[in-house]
């Protein structure tokens, strides 16, 4: 029996449970001897003491699937290469697409994963897999990267949201929702779709701030009275949720890009994506553990090259600006930038001069935190059809991200009594790209 085998209720995991209980008891959680109480939901307090380093993540989600050939893994000259050239970067031997001149002078900050083989070319299910690092089980919904980071890095009494996701375009939005799975509503994302401003974050016009505050205090008093002699994790979560309301409301200004000096706004640029990434920087600076900025729609079945000619330079500029901005603020050790999508695009060019869905050899980047800057991992063949060395799947990509954030990928959550590690058993981080 291995410690990490999956489990459906047998008594065989007493060691895990005891260890887990010990941790929980240390911070005074009211976990009873009943193993069914021992769920992931019952123990957020157990993490509090361990959250020494508040790492944060900005995920640039290239919805629809950006082409690796027009970004991180160009194949100029090959029949599959397309019209764009490659250019030398500041990392010896590393060339990327000429559409990314700004990133080309900043690759020393970043790690490129070129050998992704994720085996799924369907938008919906691939998006779920790439947000979660694995497929859901029939009866188990996993939390996505955002929810895990929110839980691991967020503070129980946090005054800011834990997980914010921007996805303004409608294409593909419903296929890649942020989901907290078995971690529950506490870690569900605050979703911004129609504008850059969260719903219900501002008090209604008809109520004064003092009334808003004091009726909340009445509620707390009623809650305290009711709570005497009663224990319930769900009741605690409700009280905690109301206690967070005023803090979250106070974070309203974080979403207001006009609070940022004009110079900084100009630097990021006038596009919606640029504004959202700037807001993301404001959020992580204020302690929000995870922000996803979704940029759609890269799904270039036709006119792939025009699409990428238009969209890649924006990504290049915004990502380079974000890296500069975070570096100047001394935040690169604590904030990670990830570029990821549900898949890449086919090397072969179709009759509409498009590229189709392709999951066999595509790319992603990770910048910051414990990632080795300037590293390249994985190699595709000269036409970009297959991975020839250092292949990476969704699971090991996630294990790498977790490790670079200082999280143990083998750490278990308990769903009911079943221990569920952050990544599936047997999946390992890519050591070569970790500091």
């Amino acid at each position, binding site marked *: 029996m291995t410690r990490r085998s999956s489990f459906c209720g*047998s008594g065989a995991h007493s060691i895990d449970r005891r260890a887990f209980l010990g941790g929980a008891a240390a911070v005074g959680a009211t976990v009873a001897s*009943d193993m069914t109480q021992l*769920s992931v939901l019952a123990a957020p307090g157990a993490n509090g003491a361990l959250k020494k380093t508040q790492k944060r993540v900005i995920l640039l989600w290239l919805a629809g699937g950006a082409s690796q050939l027009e970004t991180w893994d160009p194949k100029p000259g090959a029949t599959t290469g397309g019209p764009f050239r490659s250019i030398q970067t500041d990392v010896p031997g590393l060339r990327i697409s000429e559409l990314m001149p700004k990133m080309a002078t900043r690759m020393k900050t970043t790690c490129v994963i070129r050998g992704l083989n994720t085996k799924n070319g369907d938008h919906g299910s691939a998006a779920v897999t790439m947000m979660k690092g694995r497929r859901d089980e*029939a009866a188990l919904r996993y939390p996505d990267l955002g929810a895990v980071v929110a839980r691991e890095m967020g503070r129980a009494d946090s005054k800011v949201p834990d997980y914010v996701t921007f996805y303004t375009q409608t294409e593909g939005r419903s296929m890649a929702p942020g989901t907290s799975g078995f971690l529950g509503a506490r870690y569900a994302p605050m979703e911004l779709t129609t504008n850059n401003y969260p719903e219900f974050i*501002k008090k209604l016009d008809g109520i004064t701030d003092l009334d808003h505050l004091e009726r909340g205090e009445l509620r707390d008093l009623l809650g305290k009275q009711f709570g005497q002699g009663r224990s319930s994790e769900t009741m605690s979560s409700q009280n905690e949720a109301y206690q967070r309301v005023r803090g979250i409301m106070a974070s309203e200004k974080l979403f207001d890009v006009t609070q940022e000096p004009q110079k900084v706004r100009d630097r990021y640029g006038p596009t919606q994506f640029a504004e959202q990434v700037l807001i993301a920087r404001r959020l992580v600076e204020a302690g929000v553990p995870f922000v996803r900025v979704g940029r759609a729609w890269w799904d270039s079945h036709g006119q792939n090259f025009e699409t990428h000619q238009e969209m890649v330079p924006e990504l290049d500029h915004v990502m380079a600006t974000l890296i500069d901005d975070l570096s100047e603020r001394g935040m690169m050790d604590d904030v990670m930038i990830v570029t990821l999508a549900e898949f890449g695009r086919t090397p072969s060019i179709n009759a509409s001069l498009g590229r189709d869905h392709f999951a066999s050899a595509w790319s992603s980047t990770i910048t910051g935190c414990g990632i080795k800057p300037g590293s390249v991992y994985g190699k595709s063949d000269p036409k970009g059809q297959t991975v020839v060395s250092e292949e990476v799947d969704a699971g090991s990509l996630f294990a790498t991200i977790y490790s670079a954030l200082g999280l143990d990928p083998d750490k278990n959550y308990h769903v009911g009594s079943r221990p569920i590690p952050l990544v599936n058993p047997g999946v390992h981080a890519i050591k070569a790209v970790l500091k």
Partner: protein
Amino acid sequence: MRLRLLLLLACCVLAPTTARTADRAPAPRALVAPASAPIEQVIDQFVDAAIVEANVIPAGQADDATVIRRLTLDLVGRIPTAGEVDAYVKSKGADKRAKLVDRLIASPGFVRHQAALFDIMLNPEGDRRGSGEFRTYLTDALKENRPWDQIFREVMLPNESDPKLKGAAAFLRGRVSDADKLTADVSVAFFGVNVSCAQCHNHPHVEDWTQDHFYGMKAFLARTFDNGGFLGERGYGVIKYKPTKGPERTAKMMFLTGASVEDANAKDPGAAEMKAEKDALDKAKAAKTPPPPPKFSGRAKLVEVALKGENAEYFARSLSNRLWHRFLGTGLVSPLDQMHSENRSSHPELLAWLARDTATSGYDINRLIRGIVLSKAYSRSSRYEGSESTPPFKTFAVGRLKPMTPQQLATALKIASTDPASFDGLKPAEFETKVEQAESAARGFAALIAQPTDNFQIGVGEALLFSNGDRLMKEFLTDGAGTTLGRAKLMKEPKEVVEFLVKTAYGRAATETEAKALVGFIEKRKGREAEAYRHVLWALVTAPEFRFSY
């Protein structure tokens, strides 16, 4: 596979359980529970004995106002009106609770609420929940208290040409594109067993579940497919799988107990026969009619074997456990989908008795519900006074808080914000109509609230919605004629208003502490009392005493 001899055990007398395997037998309890005893009596006999054995002191019985709130929420999905609470508290007679239970079970609200709960139970992920036709089917079935085995049969073998029954097909139809999910969901929903852990390998620690079980169940179901909007089923086709060791295997149709079914068509039939079947299916597709069932139906075999003899204990135990969980908040086996020999029930003899009783009474849902809610175990206080630490919920020595479902909460908000006097003096039918109107008016708001699951967490999204959303204010906390706040405006003294609001929201008198705080809050807002009343009602309905069934 170690089968519990539940049916034998439960028959007439529960003798010391010498037939059990040693690893999980507790100290035998020499309890006698005749099959003819009232359910509530048997429940209390077993639960009380276990409380003594666990050496814990149970909480006292909840008071009348709490009991009617709990019963009304659990049975008909809403809070009682202040008038209902008063009438119940004042009424005398040893059978007053039974009378209330019978009145609530006979009311239309019972059918609506239980149908919603069965819908959630069968569609826990919510994708198809509330899909009109399935809910309508469940509502019709529960209205006539259709036996659970019949519902199972109608859902698994839906008759799509009968307009009254075709709604049942939605359960399968939403899952036919993924046979693995269908297999997992059927096993969880009807048998309380999650075999999906055994999909990729034999279950590492639960001997009961091997890959043979997963693929054995799948073999019954995998021939079902979508035939132009209707359910089709092929009469042939085998499931093959690659075990972790050894060569590929062909799955036998095998139920969870290991009972296998001889598949007449284990080998594919001849080309002519296959073509004839395909033609018939295509013809039905073109004609937009339900296709003919195959001569040998795997699904029909599953229903047959699952309800046969001792095999039926999974079915009966799962229903008993789920209804117990619905009303007590904790299962006799927990989690609900982990009913196997290595996850012991907290009360094995009670579960066996209930399962046996349910099976012999013809899977009568209302009978079981009535028995559970009449027990003393059900009506224990959720407040544990005294110096000892609270006993674990699985002892049922103390009541457990249950978060309301979105519809319960929104309907409760509607009732609490409606002038209680407007319910007074109504004829029963008028009262029911008014309640149903409240329920309908609450539906839109309910859609904004999350459905609770086990270990439910309330997120900050809900707190923000209640704190800053305008719908609560516009649809519930208004102060026009016929509303609670409208009535409050006519009152003179803050004290009177506070008493009235607490009574309307909570069905009880205000305590001294809260009266002082709430009156103080109002007095600080001289000249704008109406606003103050609204804030007080807001505080009352957002506090846990309103959010939970307690």
